[in-house]
């Protein structure tokens, strides 16, 4: 031990660099190895999680396709790098390969953090037919009522998101109103006592729909049926 301590006291710079370099190289190998080893499983998990989220808001769907919508340019299947300003959305196809609905993600500032939601859009009624939560940190028992409150979920049986005549913007912005004051199909009736979270959901849907739908709706025919 003592010789070792003495030797260490005069460690040359080269030895230190050599050791650190060696350790870093081994560690680099371990990281690359574990990344490669888990890559396929991680991708598979992510795909399953995504499908589960999409199937929840588009119940008839059996398969999912990923697309990008670029405002002003239209839509394209998602492959490789996302073009600038692109909005990702998911197309659900039923067992026959026909369009069953469209799912997209939106987020709004909630009570504790952003509330990220997934909503399902049906072209035939131009309305939103279901929501699911991707991630949120709202107060349990209060904010997370957006998942369980029947009256609140009833808002999303057919939430109107029709586009205006020139297909450039929403005809009516989606808006969250105070509990019990919903009068129009594009309004969301907030949960009493969880108004902030309800508003976050409304804003998330509104922002995402406003950006996505004008690019998507004119080109709906492109995705009517599943590409072979």
């Amino acid at each position, binding site marked *: 031990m003592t010789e070792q301590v003495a030797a260490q006291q005069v460690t040359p710079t080269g030895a230190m660099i050599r050791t650190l370099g060696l350790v870093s190289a081994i560690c680099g190998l371990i990281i690359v190895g574990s990344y490669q080893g888990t890559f396929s499983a991680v991708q598979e998990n992510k795909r399953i999680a995504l499908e589960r989220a999409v199937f929840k808001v588009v119940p008839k769907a059996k398969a999912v396709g990923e697309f990008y919508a670029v405002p002003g340019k239209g839509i394209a299947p998602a492959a490789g790098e996302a073009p600038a300003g692109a909005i990702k959305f998911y197309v659900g196809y039923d067992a026959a390969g026909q369009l069953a609905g469209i799912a997209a993600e939106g987020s709004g500032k909630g*009570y504790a953090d952003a509330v990220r939601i997934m909503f399902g859009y049906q072209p035939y009624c131009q309305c939103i037919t279901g929501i699911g939560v991707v991630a949120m940190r709202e*107060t349990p*028992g*209060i904010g997370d009522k957006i998942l369980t409150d029947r009256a609140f979920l009833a808002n999303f049986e057919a939430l109107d998101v029709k586009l205006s005549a020139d297909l450039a913007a929403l005809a009516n912005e989606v808006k969250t109103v*105070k*509990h019990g004051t919903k009068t129009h199909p594009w309004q969301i009736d907030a949960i009493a*006592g969880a108004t*902030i979270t309800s508003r976050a959901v409304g804003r998330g849907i509104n922002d995402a729909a406003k950006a996505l739908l004008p690019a998507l709706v004119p080109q709906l025919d492109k995705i009517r049926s599943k590409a072979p």
Partner: protein
Amino acid sequence: MSTAIEIRPGPHVKGPRSVEKIMANVVYSLLPICLFYVYQYGISALASILVVTASCLLAERWFVRTGTQSGHLGDFSATITGLLLALTMPPGFPLWMGAVAGMVAIALGKGIFGGIGCNVFNPALVGRAFAQAAFPTAIATYTPSFLPGRFAEFIPSTLAWPLMMPADAAAWLKEKHLDALSGATPLAQWKFEGIVADAADLLSSLSGHMAVGPSPLLILACGAYLAARRFMDWRIPIAVLGSAGAVAWVLYGFNPGHYPSPFFMLFSGGLILGAVFMATDMATSPVTPTGMWVYGGLIGLLTVLIRYYGGLPEGVMYAILIGNAATPLIERVTQPTPFGKGVLGKKRAASYDLTPDYISREEAAAVTPKKRFLRNKPRKGL
């Protein structure tokens, strides 16, 4: 000299006004309020008061029995905590939740700080804050007062099984064809629906079936008795109510359409009860007269701000807890200058050293009362 001498802070004059006597008088003055509460809500309120107080006494007994702190059951302090805690909670609050809140109030609010006189926060409010955080729905569920048959039948939520969800009060009212009566407190109605109740009605609590606590007028009368007998300092309630009223009045003056009248602010919710019985808790409020004004003013201001701009309709509880936390600072800043000291060097002039040299030789050899709890337990940081 083997006898241990206990060092206790002055004054050492023995007067007829002992802690026990003061506490007993506070209990006496709380009794009419509790009676009125039972008159308002019937046997549910009675059961709630009894269970909460009993659980406070049980917790107190355990902490006193383990021998780690001074105080005993007979000093009435735990009784006060229990009564106040029960009064701040809705009458139909499930009994098991009330028992949990009572235990937490004494254990977390008082026991772990060392017992009577050592607590930093008002124990009743600690218990209520815990209940508010743990059971936010149940603690916001009020029922209308003066219901017919309230002395014969429990509010169903009262009798919820331990750990189980209370029955839905709205469904119960519907069943009794009383759903025209609102179970929302006046503050919640103002906050969420924009309905402002009449201040005179709130003052007496007697008109209609309002979902309110005991009459502010009665609380003020009981507080006046305590203040007149010098069992309570009159400055704190006056400061709390004055500052809350003044802030509410200024805001009302700016925009009467948006803000309710200052009288509504004063007489709604638990402001009067908090100002008279909770903010004045001797262990958790400043001892200097100037400090009392500052402390009361802070609580009043915070109450109004939380009510107007916070997420919850009621703000008295958090305002008082924050006031409690600020008490040591307020005391430090508002220390009076001892006679003979100049204006210069006034700051902290009345502070005492931790090891004063004026202790006599006999006292210097004295043994301080042993703190046995957590001894021999070295701790390292994070």
